[in-house]
């Protein structure tokens, strides 16, 4: 029986959990080999497998959701819960690194000169590039909200589908027979506009600006790393600083990639006004990265200097 009469998505067998786990294992052990023997080959192999898994697995999810229609409301609820739990686990990760930072900075040991930043460390000026980066990330939060609202308000008002029930069986395809009644929307139902252009263009511009701001942020952070007078091996200050900002920077890279994928999906009209879970997850992730940066800025860059 090919038709199923329940809202759940029973997934097909997939190689990606195994390939991803193999990649994670190889990357972890490869990183140890990289650090101890300066041999990057195993780490690169693991990283390659992880990237392959991420790309192909989420490609599969897009196929299952957008193109096969498996993402019913109850499935969407599960995916949302999964994303929120994932972000919660990320919060715990950053909490651990912040714990290390406060442990070392609130009562600096005598080896550091009993001061924070430790003697000899020239901390970065919090009111230079880090402040600029704060405004960049906050602005990107605004632009992504702009894009999101443009998508929600996107379509012209559509009347309820007439006669789609009962005539074609329980699982109508997205074919011409079903959509013929939807095509005949009156001409006076024009798409809403904002800033002199339609909402779709607004969404495209908003999301593109978010991605560009994310890339600028990463570039400025790379510049800061290059200009910093201390390294990760310079006392516990360097360790906590680069562990925190480095982990955050990696998350910015991942969030930017996530938003770029959403940008491409937006261009290929995969998001509807009521169902754009990939974008919502990307926005949650982006805001999470944003909030982590605010904590980083206030405590590590500002108070910590």
């Amino acid at each position, binding site marked *: *029986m090919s*038709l*199923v*009469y*329940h*809202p759940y998505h029973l997934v097909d067998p997939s190689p990606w959990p195994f390939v991803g786990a193999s990649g994670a294992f190889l990357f972890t052990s490869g990183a140890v080999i990289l650090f101890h023997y*300066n041999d990057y080959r195993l780490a690169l192999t693991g990283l390659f497998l992880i990237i392959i898994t991420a790309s192909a697995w989420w490609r599969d999810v897009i196929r299952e*959701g*957008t*193109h*096969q*229609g*498996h*993402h*019913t*409301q*109850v499935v969407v609820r599960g995916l949302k819960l999964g994303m929120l739990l994932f972000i919660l686990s990320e919060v715990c990760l950053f909490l651990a690194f912040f714990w290390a930072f406060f442990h070392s900075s609130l009562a600096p040991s005598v080896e550091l000169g009993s001061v924070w930043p430790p003697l000899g460390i020239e901390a970065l000026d919090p009111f230079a590039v880090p402040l600029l980066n704060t405004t960049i990330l906050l602005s990107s939060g605004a632009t992504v909200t702009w894009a999101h609202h*443009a*998508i929600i308000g*996107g*379509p*012209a008002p*559509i009347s*309820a*589908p007439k006669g*789609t*029930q009962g005539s074609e069986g*329980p*699982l*109508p*395809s*997205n*074919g*011409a027979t*079903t*959509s013929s009644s*939807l*095509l005949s929307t009156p001409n006076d139902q024009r*798409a809403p506009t904002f800033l002199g252009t*339609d*909402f*779709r*263009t607004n*969404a*495209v511009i908003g999301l*593109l600006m978010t991605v*560009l701001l994310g890339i600028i942020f990463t570039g400025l952070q790379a510049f800061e790393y290059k200009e910093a007078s201390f390294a990760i091996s310079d006392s516990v200050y360097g360790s906590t600083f680069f562990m925190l900002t480095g982990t955050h920077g990696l998350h910015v890279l991942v969030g930017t990639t996530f938003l770029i994928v959403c*940008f*491409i*999906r937006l*261009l*290929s*009209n*995969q*998001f*509807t*006004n*009521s*169902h754009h879970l990939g974008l919502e997850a990307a926005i949650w992730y982006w805001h999470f990265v944003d909030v982590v940066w605010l904590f980083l800025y206030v405590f590590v860059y500002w108070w910590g200097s």
Partner: protein
Amino acid sequence: MGSDHSRVRPVLKPGDEYRGWALLLVIVRAPSGFVLVAHRWAFSFFPIVASDVGVTGRIPSASEQATGKEKFEHDAMMTGNTDPFDMSFHEGPWGTAVNPRGVPSHFDERILGCVCEPEATQIIYMTLKKGNPQQCDCGHWWKLVEAK
């Protein structure tokens, strides 16, 4: 880890100072070109859903875009059916041997959970098979009927 930390800086040639401005020009001009290229690229790699129903210049709605089970659910909800997959709890009259409660199923049997009385603290499960009406432990009568 590297043995040589010294950096070799490239020697500036005449005209190099203009490269920054050229880069700025590329950045300013890039977005429109990038949108065009990305648009073409996306459409060539990703199967187009929206064009099937002719959506251009705006965000499609779920009525136009959804497919498969999602479309089934969406269309049912648009026509007023809030429980398209029959997932909700049913309340109703006591089934008797003469007039049993009908339980819709697409199959030959369905697992049935009965909360026998409002105060009951447990659900009693049974397998309802196609054919004659069956009685659960608390006395209700059930009959499997063909689901539409």
